[in-house]
């Protein structure tokens, strides 16, 4: 089927999971209204979680999860050799995600605490781009299926994709959501103190599901372009938030490393 005189590609896609909750690949099977069309526009040749078909001949590899063990590094290097395009799918693959929280602890102690005197191999968590070059990043915890669909459309029509530069704040306003920065503080009830919401500094594209449901943005999509971090931190300070509280939010998804 041609569209505007262009023949679409039907890319051969493989989906691989590393250290993660597998929630992002699950999103690929969601979006039921358009699922049949979505699956029809691509050729999924390897997707272990939902299919027993295995195949090593693919153009696009979607990588879910962070890298936390030596066998994962080897596996990722093999996939990188085969794939023309490597996509980091989700916050764990893009930034390391919540897995990176363990890096703040001594891993030998952590191992002993969980496994006693029978420790299991583990490395500090790393993002996919820390190991191999990545062509495209789709952040989100979990990824938004709509955004995945939009990106797949770009791949099918061979049109370069540019992620939104604007922050989550913009999309939150588009939804007419009540700003969680301005409500009374949850639990303590302090008037107008609100929550620490990273919406003003986080890259948009998710349509702000968290603040729209009354939960602040914790920045799973990483920094927006040209985010004014300095001014953001000074506003939080003015509002009486302590350093550790801000740190706990910024560190949560490992997506703001190096800021503040």
């Amino acid at each position: 089927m041609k569209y505007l005189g262009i023949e679409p590609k039907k890319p051969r896609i493989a989906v691989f999971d590393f250290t993660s909750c597998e929630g992002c690949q699950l999103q690929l099977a969601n979006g039921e209204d358009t699922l049949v069309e979505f699956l029809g526009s691509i050729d999924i040749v390897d997707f272990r979680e939902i299919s027993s078909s295995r195949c090593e001949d693919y153009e696009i590899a979607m990588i879910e999860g962070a890298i936390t063990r030596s066998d994962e590094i080897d596996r990722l290097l093999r996939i990188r050799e085969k794939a023309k395009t490597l996509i980091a799918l989700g916050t764990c693959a893009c930034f390391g995600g919540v897995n990176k929280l363990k890096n703040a602890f001594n891993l030998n102690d952590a191992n002993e605490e969980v496994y006693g005197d029978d420790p299991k191999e583990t490395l500090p968590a790393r993002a996919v781009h820390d190991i191999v070059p990545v062509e495209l990043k789709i952040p989100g915890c979990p990824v938004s299926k709509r955004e995945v669909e939009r990106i797949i459309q770009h791949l099918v029509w061979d049109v370069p994709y540019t992620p939104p530069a604007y922050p989550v704040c913009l999309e939150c306003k588009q939804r007419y959501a009540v700003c969680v920065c301005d409500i009374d503080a949850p639990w303590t009830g302090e008037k107008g103190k609100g929550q620490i919401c990273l919406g003003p500094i986080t890259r948009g594209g998710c349509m702000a599901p968290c603040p729209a449901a009354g939960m602040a943005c914790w920045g799973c999509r990483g920094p927006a372009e040209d985010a004014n971090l300095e001014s953001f931190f000074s506003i939080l300070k003015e509002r009486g938030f302590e350093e550790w509280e801000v740190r706990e939010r910024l560190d949560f998804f490992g997506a703001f490393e190096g800021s503040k």
Partner: protein
Amino acid sequence: MKVNLDVDVHHLTRVEGHGNIRVRVKDGNIEEANWTVVETPRFFEVMLKGKHFSTAAALSSRICGICSIAHCLASLEATEHAFDITIPSIAAKLRLLGKHGETLQSHLLHLFFLAAPDFLNVPSVIPLAATSPEVVDLARRLKGLANRVCDIAAGRTTHPVSFCVGGVSSVPNRDRLLQLRDALERSLEDLATSVELVAGFSIPRFARETEFVSLKGESDYAFIGRTAVSSDGVERDVSDYRQMTNEYVVKHSTSKYCRLSRDSFAVGPLARFNNNHEHLHPAAAEVASRLGLEPVCHNPFMAHVARLVECVHATHQAIHLIEEIADTGASERAAADVEPRAGEGIGAVEAPRGILYHHYEYGANGKIVRANCVIPTTQNHANIQNDLTDLVAQSAETMMQDGEIELLGSMLVRAYDPCISCSVH
């Protein structure tokens, strides 16, 4: 003639997470019949240390992308238990609605995407779009609706955003709720079609006497509760979860194993059905009897039927809950006051795959000192192993071949719908 078998399944497909099956039989003697968990450990219990109570539920939900609502709820229950908080009834109802949404979401994903291909002789649901579009359409409609229940009750289908310590942060509007109720009522017809589909599955005949553990409902088929019970007669408050699970570390697996009265036990839909069947909605009980599921059922493959029975039950319960929530509306406060204090709290919920416990110890500053999570699939691993050993022994006697035992062994593990990365949290 003595049978020789050599089966090596590396990273079993159509399950969540990474596990291997290895079977070697020589001259009729079983040399190996092993289920091994090779998932990478993530150390969530360590990551939770030092975190503020407002962070705990969002972090724990990341243990699992399929049962994130269960983890979020068990975490909130544990924190609220530690701080001695009673949540408003509208919040309790919305959380339970989210729980039913997740049960539907997870069970339907398993039934259509992970399990059905084995019974319909296809590698995945994808080729069915061309050969049996009506099945794909059915799956799409039912799973789409289950996702919508979670969207409305929890703010999102995966990793909930509207459940918080003390209650919920938003209450869905009445119109949305009533439209959801109507859609759920209409979906009962699709569930009836699914019952006929499953009636056509040839469920393997196999049984091994098993101890079943679940929450106990006083008057309901419990999904959130404080009493755990086993079919061997053990009954304890969930605060005694350590005595109910007895976790231990094994060499060959990154997940721990568990035991209770015997050297293994099972949790999940079949355990819930066996222990609480008298509290099922009549329509769900009817489906059980239509599909030949009778308590106490010791065939692990019948978990597929138990899941569908629970889908019918959860749909009826969700309809009922929505009516109650819509009647109360947003007039009530949806979250209780929270005063952190030093102490311990234990929460338990029935995740789709079985009973899940979270245990936190808090300091006076509202930060976690120590955390422990016991996952349903962790509790099932030893039982999967024991079933596999028996299944291979029985199959070897009937002179089954490599391909057949590979399929049957894979189907056995899939019947538990293991959440492997969850079990290795």
